[in-house]
């Protein structure tokens, strides 16, 4: 019987010819990523279990990217960065991107891609649930906790239950104002926040393959919001073009077999997609942006691993150019590279950064910032009962810092259009004019 791309990658990393959904297997790990929130706990468990002087299984396969609580006075948060530094020094780890140095990157999931750690056919685990993002590169990637990460640090292996696969196919062409964020919010709205629990979400179809790597990352990023174990898109030329610019390492491209078995298969007509928001307080609380125009907003937030990439800011800038925002609007590039691009990329001769400044938006430093609330002094952290439109991925109660706030998840187009009007706005007219 045929296998899906996820099954093939897992089989190859377990030294087997084939695997079946439900099999418990031990896989060899190509990359382990951790960050400032989960690194310290992971290292403590690693030392407790393998000994004070134990060495990690492979220095070259460990990637440490501080990104969550970065620009803060919080002493505990800053101490966590010191713990990362200490561990990196002890273990002499080459892939560390320290805060306050030229080497600092920002949000781990985009940094992994930009630094060449996302390679087709590989297996990547990270101590962050949005590690599913890397699946956009035709690799298996998923989030784990500190204990599993410590186990990998010591052994290079971890057990995996092979997931069943679900196939989401989009044929045709997405309308110009529809972004990957709308597509994933639409799907999560259809299947629910536990609709893909334990399963793989595979994206296919010419509409998906027409997307840039950054847009593909957005699709895979939010697999976890449907409970998914991983999101995955077969690698093609778009993928290899991106990867080749970032790394010389070899990779292997896998394809799903024609007769592979899927737990669920659905084909969507891409041209029927619309701008979607997820209403408070759940990513599956779907509505069309056009149905929510009576929702008055206090602020807009454009950032995070989901909505803080260059393509996201290009989209926002297109709408904000030459206009003024009516509500507080926060712009947080995911990584340093994105921030630099905001200074370089132009629309009709004006840089994105100037477009945002002239529109009256506030600019933050690259990091996770208010996507997860964070310490009290975090840039863009929601206050009181504010109503926020955000390009992030979660609108659970309190996620952005205030339990009383109301967060609507949306695409960068929708967030930008809404920032201009002060209420939730379907971006179609702005984009098409």
């Amino acid at each position, binding site marked *: 019987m045929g296998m899906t791309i996820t099954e093939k990658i897992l089989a190859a990393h377990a030294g087997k010819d084939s695997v079946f959904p439900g099999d418990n297997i031990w896989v060899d790990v190509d990359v382990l990523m951790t960050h400032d929130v989960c690194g310290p706990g992971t290292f*403590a468990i690693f030392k407790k279990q393998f000994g004070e002087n134990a060495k990690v299984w492979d220095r070259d396969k460990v990637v440490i990217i501080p990104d969550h609580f970065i620009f803060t006075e919080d002493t505990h948060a800053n101490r966590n960065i010191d713990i990362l530094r200490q561990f990196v020094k002890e273990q002499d780890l080459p892939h560390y991107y320290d805060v306050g140095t030229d080497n600092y990157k920002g949000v781990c999931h985009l940094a992994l891609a930009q630094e060449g750690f996302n390679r087709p056919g590989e297996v990547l685990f990270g101590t962050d649930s949005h590690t599913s993002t890397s699946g956009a590169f035709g690799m298996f990637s998923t989030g784990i906790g500190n204990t599993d990460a410590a186990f990998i640090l010591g052994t290079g292996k971890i057990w995996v239950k092979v997931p069943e696969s679900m196939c989401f196919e989009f044929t045709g062409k997405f309308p110009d104002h529809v972004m990957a964020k709308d597509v994933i919010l639409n799907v999560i709205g259809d299947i629910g926040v536990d609709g893909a629990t334990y399963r793989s979400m595979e994206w296919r179809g010419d509409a998906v393959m027409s997307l840039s790597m950054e847009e593909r990352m957005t699709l895979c990023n939010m697999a976890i919001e449907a409970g998914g174990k991983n999101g995955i898109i077969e690698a093609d030329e778009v993928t290899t073009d991106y990867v080749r610019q970032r790394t010389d390492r070899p990779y292997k491209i896998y394809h799903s077999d024609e007769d592979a078995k899927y737990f669920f298969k659905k084909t969507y007509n891409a041209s029927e997609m619309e701008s979607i928001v997820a209403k408070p307080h759940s990513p599956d609380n779907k509505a069309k942006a056009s149905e929510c125009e009576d929702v008055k907003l206090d602020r807009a937030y454009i950032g995070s691993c989901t909505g803080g990439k260059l393509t996201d800011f290009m989209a926002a800038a297109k709408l904000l150019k030459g206009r003024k925002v009516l509500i507080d609007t926060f712009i947080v590039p995911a990584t340093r590279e994105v921030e630099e691009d905001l200074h370089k990329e132009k629309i009709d001769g004006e840089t994105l950064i100037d477009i945002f400044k002239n529109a009256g938006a506030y600019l933050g430093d690259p990091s996770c910032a208010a996507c997860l609330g964070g310490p009290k002094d975090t840039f863009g952290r929601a206050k009181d009962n504010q109503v926020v439109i955000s390009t992030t991925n979660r609108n659970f109660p309190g996620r952005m810092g205030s339990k009383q706030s109301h967060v609507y998840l949306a695409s960068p187009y929708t967030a930008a259009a809404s920032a201009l009007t002060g209420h939730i706005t379907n971006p179609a007219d702005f984009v098409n004019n």
Partner: protein
Amino acid sequence: MKKIIEGLAYVLGNDVDTDQIIPAEHLVYSLSDPEEKKNYGKFALTGVPGEQAGLPEGNVSFTEGDNFESKYSIIIGGKNFGCGSSREHAPACMEIAGVRAVVAQSYARIFYRNSVDGGFFIPFECETRLVEEIKTGDDLKIDLEANTLSNKTQNKTYDLKSLGEVIDIIEAGNIFEYARKTGMIASS
């Protein structure tokens, strides 16, 4: 492994996410410092919206004041318990507060895995929607051999789903002990 777990119930609803279990601003404390880690117990479940906290009445604090231990040691949940982030601080804070078992309709996978691999508490599943049956404060007893949950306050007993393959890891204590038992890693 203990064969019987007894304690008072604390009842929550569906989709209890990890930001509710431990809000992100608290993820800064050390889990290896015995004093500092008590903070996790103190802030466990403080992100749950008031009306959902301690059903059916709601607005029941899980821990009181500066206490890091809760009088409730068995959590009853609905669907998709523990969804959201991979933060192991979530099952850890519940254990620090004294939770010994969770009985939910279903779990989000990372949370489930963390609970088992880290050996924080036993995540049971039950087909009956206990959220509507059990009240916060009810006196419960879980019998691991019979695979049942008894509500002593209401004199009712429910079947729990089998723990399946993860029972081996639960019995060993955590993933490391399991790997030592099976010879995957050297015994310490």
